[in-house]
């Protein structure tokens, strides 16, 4: 009966607080992977995974279930929605700002096939905004990040790859 008394907006709001396990300054709503909440006989939470092999997927699904249990909601099911595929364009403006403050350069907007194949674009340093930056490694601490360094403030930083 609990399910009948709460709205999907309410559930969405609660879930908007759930942090991403790998980049905890971002919530799953900032990241754009929380796609929707459907209330039927049970509460169905729709999530879209970022990368196919993202090891955080299961952790996120469990956090969603735990967050709703804390609100006294028991009858929860997580549904993985693959289509349309997640893109970094779904990261919210607030999310981009939080990433930058955290020291990770947010992904360039407008993920395109061209971008993926050629990937030549100046990335601004999240600390001093300089465009005098260079790739150190196309790969970083997680599948979604690349490593950069800034030629002006000389700090290394991570860049959230555009996909």
């Amino acid at each position, binding site marked *: 009966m609990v399910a009948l008394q709460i709205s999907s907006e309410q559930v969405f709001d609660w879930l908007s607080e759930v942090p991403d396990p790998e980049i905890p300054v971002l919530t799953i709503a900032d990241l754009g992977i929380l796609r929707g909440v459907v209330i039927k006989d049970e509460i169905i939470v729709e999530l879209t*995974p970022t*990368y*196919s*092999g*993202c*090891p955080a997927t299961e952790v996120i699904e469990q956090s969603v279930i735990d967050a709703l249990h804390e609100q006294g909601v028991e009858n929860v099911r997580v549904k993985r929605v*693959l*289509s*349309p*595929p*997640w*893109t970094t364009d779904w990261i919210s403006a607030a999310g981009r700002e939080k990433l930058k403050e955290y020291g990770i350069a947010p992904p360039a907007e407008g993920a395109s*096939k061209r971008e*993926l*194949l*050629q*990937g030549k674009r100046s990335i601004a340093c999240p600390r001093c905004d300089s465009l005098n930056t260079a790739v*150190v*490694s*196309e*790969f*970083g601490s997680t*599948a979604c990040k690349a490593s950069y360094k800034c030629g002006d403030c000389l700090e290394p930083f991570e860049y959230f*790859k555009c*996909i």
Partner: protein
Amino acid sequence: MNQDKALLAYVSRLGDNALILGQRMVELVAAYPELEEELANANFALDFIGQARMFYSYAGELEGQGRGEDDFAFLRDENEFRNFLLIEQPNGHFGDAITKLVLFESFYLLLLEALTHCSDERVVAIAARAEKEIRYHLRHNTHWFVRLGDGTDESHERVQGSVDSLWQFTGEMFAPDEVDNVFEAEFNGPDLFNIRKAWQANVESMLADATLAMPEDTWMASGGKQGRHSEHLGYMIAEMQYLQRTHPGANW
């Protein structure tokens, strides 16, 4: 072969290619001499294993006998895997590993693009996700391929050797069997003839950039798609499945 059987076989074969290649790459984890390549390889392997999980989960649902992704990966025998022979070849040296990846991924990318236009929604969704990942892989791996081919005399010679020895395994990717034919006809699946033409053009230009010679037309090995594998697959599967075979149902 009816439509349902063909779809199941097709999807589980996509899972086999992704898993076996991912597992081969896992063998190189912690073995690369340089951190960037170490991370690249591990991340790419993870993409393949993630793709395999999505294909296998779907295969399990299509089959409807309660088998899940782990049953497909860990509880089938060698002859039930239908991956290409190319995929299961040992890693060899760095040039071999990179050559294998560019030859396969330049095919796989075209295949995934075509699959995003097939009529099965779930395959479309998985292919759309995977296509983006493979595009990124191919960019990185092609850079290496060109750098090795157009590098020192030593690297040029060795990577030409890789191309020459792996070439015989490329024909199988384009040889349609009943599963491919039914999938193409009933699900608007990929046309392997067109994919071959596009692949040939891409590989020719990649070889030219890398100053490498295109191998002569040669005899092509086949059998992977029918479950007749080279001796290399059995050893790999034995290692991969050891834990589930020894402690059935082990979980953590």
